[in-house]
């Protein structure tokens, strides 16, 4: 428990502050300094190296006129909503795992969920890319075998403008990531047995128990995951880049804000504009996080 220490006695605790100082310095240098540097450079035409020309708010004005950027925010909103829906399954799985009677089997199932975590995410993305490959990919091959399409037909999952976004949303099916499951499981395991006994005595069935007891008591974990998911989705762009390239698919249909930054900064050398877009992403993420904190309350 934290105790208040009078200022004059701080000198007796100097080793603690010294130990904190070093990581704090590293955080300032490697986390905060780039943020402030980026905010500074958003007012510049900057090539990422030494060419810096102060241009005032021109980058911000350009952002408001950039239809691609606004489109990308629309796309990322779709992904955020889809990811919120995708959060349901890990909760269900965690609840089911929590109720497994045998400790041995429960442990075994948990291991099964954890093992895929060791596969690098890049490998997963490339597998899904192969999955969606129109000519020899697994999905089209499956549809051919099941007779939904003829042997010479293909469905262009990543080239057909109407199918690109649904394909990206579907990626990761069945959307039961180990990280989410383990976090919810940890929350569920913190619920006292007495509460379950009281609920059983009161005649509560499984669904009522889940809705009225388990879900409210893991709201902290849900909120953590929601915040992390929102931040990750808004900032994420690597999947899109690997799947669809720098252009974000046919006609740029799946462009996300992160890809816009990468394109403008690293492909066109407009780092100043990239910083401006980055700042907007930061602001949007902050607003959504505040909304999340306000409305997703933790009931003690």
């Amino acid at each position, binding site marked *: 428990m934290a105790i208040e220490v009078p200022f004059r006695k701080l000198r007796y605790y100097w080793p603690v502050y010294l130990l904190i100082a070093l990581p704090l310095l590293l955080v300032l240098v490697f986390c905060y300094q780039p943020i402030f540097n980026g905010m500074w450079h958003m007012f510049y035409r900057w090539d990422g*190296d*030494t*060419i*810096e*020309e*102060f241009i005032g708010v021109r980058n911000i004005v350009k952002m408001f006129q950039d239809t691609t950027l606004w489109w990308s925010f629309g796309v990322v909103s779709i992904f955020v909503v889809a990811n919120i829906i995708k959060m349901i399954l890990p909760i269900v799985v965690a609840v089911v795992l929590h109720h497994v009677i045998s400790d041995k089997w429960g442990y075994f199932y948990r291991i099964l969920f954890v093992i895929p975590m060791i596969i690098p995410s890049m490998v997963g993305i490339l597998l899904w890319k192969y999955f969606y490959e129109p000519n020899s990919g697994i999905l089209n091959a499956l549809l051919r075998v099941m007779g939904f399409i003829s042997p010479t037909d293909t469905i262009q999952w990543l080239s057909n403008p109407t199918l690109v976004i649904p394909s990206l949303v579907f990626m990761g099916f069945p959307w039961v990531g180990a990280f989410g499951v383990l976090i919810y499981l940890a929350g569920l395991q913190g619920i006292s047995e007495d509460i379950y006994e009281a609920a059983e005595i009161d005649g509560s069935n499984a669904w009522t128990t889940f809705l009225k007891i388990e879900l409210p008591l893991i709201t902290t974990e849900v909120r953590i995951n929601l915040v992390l998911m929102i931040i990750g989705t808004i900032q994420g762009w690597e999947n899109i880049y690997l799947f669809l390239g720098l252009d974000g698919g046919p006609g740029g249909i799946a462009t996300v804000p992160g890809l816009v930054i990468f394109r403008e900064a690293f492909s066109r050398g407009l780092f100043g504009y990239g910083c401006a877009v980055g700042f907007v992403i930061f602001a949007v993420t902050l607003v959504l996080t505040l909304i999340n904190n306000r409305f997703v309350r933790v009931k003690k």
Partner: protein
Amino acid sequence: MKDSLWILAVTLAGTSLALGAGTGPNRKDASHAALEAYAEMDYAQAEKLAVKIPDTPNGKLVGGLCDLYDRSHQNIERGQKTLSHLFNDEKTPLEIRLEAGLALGRTVQLMKQRHDLYGKSADLYNHDEILGKVRKLAPGSRADRDAFFYLIRERLEDPKRSDAAFKELEEYFRNFKGEKKLLPPLQLLAEYEYIRLRRDYKSAVRHLAEGYETGFANPSQTRSALFRLAFLYDRKLHNKPMAVKYYKEYLERYPYSGEAVVAKRFLNDLGKGKAAK
């Protein structure tokens, strides 16, 4: 007491060593090293060395030039101030004055072209005056040629001064007393501007041919100029004998180039008497 004496002895020894190390190479060496580092465009090293000799003309020159051309562009005004003092001080050795004046004049000219970026800083000096003075200090020299190059382009592009500028250009070539090898870049500029502003192919080709005969420094420029000569004589001046001469010369010198097939075709067309479009 004994401890204090030891401390004093060690401190004195250390100070002597530091002073000895601090003198380092003599000022003449530092001066040359600074210039050498600058010639290699190692601005960081050049500045470091220039700081050791701040009151010498070389030190001021290198310091001023580094401030101007350092990629961060943070100390342009300071650099220009230093160079302006050097340039206007008649006691400064001539070579240093010339380079100071050229660098100052040219960068001011470039700043005026980006007024949106440099604002009032671009108006602190008059580049016309500075470059003009450079020319007067060393007529026929490389510095004179460079200064004239920058000035004449600006004057040619100004509709009010263009006619006079073309006359000035021709006069410069006629009266130039310096090394002939200095002229080819100006001749290339003349070729370009005669075509761009007047579509005067006769004058353009005359200058291009002179530059080619004198010899361009860049071998790629030589190759391009030779093909251009042939093409301009052929397609713009309709001068068959000169076109044939230059096409043949091109094929002899550059048989593997992409334009070689075109030169052959044009030569054939000329041989068959096909009128150029």
